[in-house]
């Protein structure tokens, strides 16, 4: 049977099939996540046991907090995106980062190591205009100590930074932006801003594997996650890693931390208790060497007993961190399933239209 070619109708119909199937797949994934959350009872943190658990509580800071890029809000997770238009996919800036935090319920708190987590956090900020109300671009570093000292707070207060800048955003009119010229300014028209984040004090549901801290393979690595953007995420890019290796081979980059930073690479040097003798001028006062206890403490990175239970991602039990109480999280996932089923209908309808067009029953 000869097929009738009608690209005006057939191409959108094909796209409809593909989009419908994509929406259905997303809905099915949401259903699997929602079922997993709904089928796991909430554990009380004080009575928690090793294995897969669901906990529900509020977010508390651990050692560090993040500052969100678009609204400068202190948080433990953010996903921010700036696009040239609401509908388009022309992304100007995109970043997703998280740091370790604690979740607290009425009975106690539990440390969460978020690396590899699936985040389900709705947008808190979504606006399209030249300079929307509520846009307060981050002007300082993304990471900050959770409990800053008095001196650090005074230094923050006295630091003057150019307004409206966002480190890493091409064209943001900030001091540390690599490209000046005001891409975010009025001269280039409105942009679409989206930011979702998990702030301190927010209600959160966490589903993952509880294990003793001592069993965590890489605590420092598990504590910071830079899915998109940020220096650690860049290192995971094979092209960037190859460039770094080439720069090392060409002698443009030092081969190790010791070569690059000298004494500063010695653990404890910065606080005057180096773990091994530094190379100092003869006239300089020698520094006391850290005791074995201090050394162990510096090397541990986290001041946490090995038997302390923590929650982290594992190969067997993926870590899910979702904003809100469990019933809200399940509701969001079930909404995705309903949309996914509508996607299946879209795919079927598009397939019927495609078939009718191919057989010449519909002609544009």
């Amino acid at each position, binding site marked *: 049977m000869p097929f009738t070619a009608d690209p005006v109708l057939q191409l959108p119909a094909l796209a409809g099939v593909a989009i419908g199937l994509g929406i259905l797949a997303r809905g099915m994934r949401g259903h699997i996540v929602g*079922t997993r959350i709904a089928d796991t009872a909430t554990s009380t943190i004080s*009575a928690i*046991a090793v*294995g897969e658990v669901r906990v529900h509580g509020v977010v508390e800071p651990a050692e560090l907090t993040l500052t969100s890029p678009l609204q400068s809000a202190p948080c433990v997770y953010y996903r921010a995106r700036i696009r040239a238009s609401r509908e388009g996919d022309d992304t100007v800036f995109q970043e997703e980062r998280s740091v370790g935090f604690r979740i607290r319920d009425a009975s106690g708190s539990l440390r969460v190591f978020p690396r590899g987590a699936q985040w389900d956090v709705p947008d808190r900020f979504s606006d399209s205009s030249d300079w929307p109300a509520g846009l307060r671009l981050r002007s300082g570093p993304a990471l900050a100590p959770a409990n800053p000292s008095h001196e650090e707070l005074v230094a923050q207060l006295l630091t003057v930074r150019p307004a409206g800048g966002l480190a890493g955003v091409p064209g943001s009119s900030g001091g540390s932006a690599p490209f000046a010229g005001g891409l975010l300014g009025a001269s280039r028209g409105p942009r679409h801003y989206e930011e979702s984040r998990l702030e301190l004090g927010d209600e959160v549901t966490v589903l993952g594997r509880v294990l003793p801290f001592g069993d965590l393979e890489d605590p420092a690595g598990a504590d910071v996650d830079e899915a998109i953007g940020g220096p650690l995420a860049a290192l995971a890019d094979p092209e960037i890693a190859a460039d770094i290796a080439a720069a090392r081979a060409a002698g443009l980059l030092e081969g190790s931390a010791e070569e690059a930073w000298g004494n500063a690479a010695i653990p404890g040097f910065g606080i005057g208790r180096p773990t091994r003798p530094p190379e100092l001028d003869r006239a300089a006062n020698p520094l006391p060497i850290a005791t074995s206890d201090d050394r162990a403490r510096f090397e541990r990175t986290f001041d946490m007993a090995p038997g302390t239970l923590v929650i982290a991602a594992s190969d067997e039990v993926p870590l899910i961190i979702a904003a809100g109480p469990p019933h809200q999280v399940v509701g969001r996932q079930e909404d995705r399933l309903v949309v996914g*089923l509508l996607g*299946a209908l879209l*795919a079927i309808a598009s*397939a019927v239209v*495609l078939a009718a067009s191919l057989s010449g029953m519909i002609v544009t």
Partner: protein
Amino acid sequence: MSPASLAAAFSIGLLLAVVFFFLFTTYNSVVALRLRIDKAWANIEVALQQRHDQLPNLVEAVKDVMTFERDVLERVTQLRAGWSRSQPVPAQAANSAATSAALRELFAVVERYPELRSQDNVLDLQNEIERLEGIIADRRELYNDQVYRHNTRIAQVPAVFLAGPFGWRPREFFDADETADERPDVALPTG
């Protein structure tokens, strides 16, 4: 094959895929629920065993001073001896509830003995057993919540259609029966 047949095959295939997806995820979720119940139960047993191991130490620490309170000590000892991990869930639940009640009574009696309250080892044991009692209560709640989710799931569509062929039956709650609150009739040894 004509385009119309292809479209029909695609539509039917997609609908079947969605139906199989629901059956597949339902089967997997019920299996996961049953495993979660087993794990929750194993965690209760760990806590019960820990309390079981601490009870002789407590009785040993207080028995010389509490010469006139032998009935409560005897009850704790008998209940400890009456617990076994091989018992069915309701029997273990009844034993656990009775042990908790007996321990509450024992701690109330200990409060009347200043010489016991001044002993560090008695206080440590009391704190440890009270901690374990809290853990048992929390884990029992978790277990029952998990059983509730399982029993509800297998009674609902679509799992109810799979329950028969796969032999899924409702699980028992960790719930003491009516006799658990009754005071056990313990005969004091004479002499």
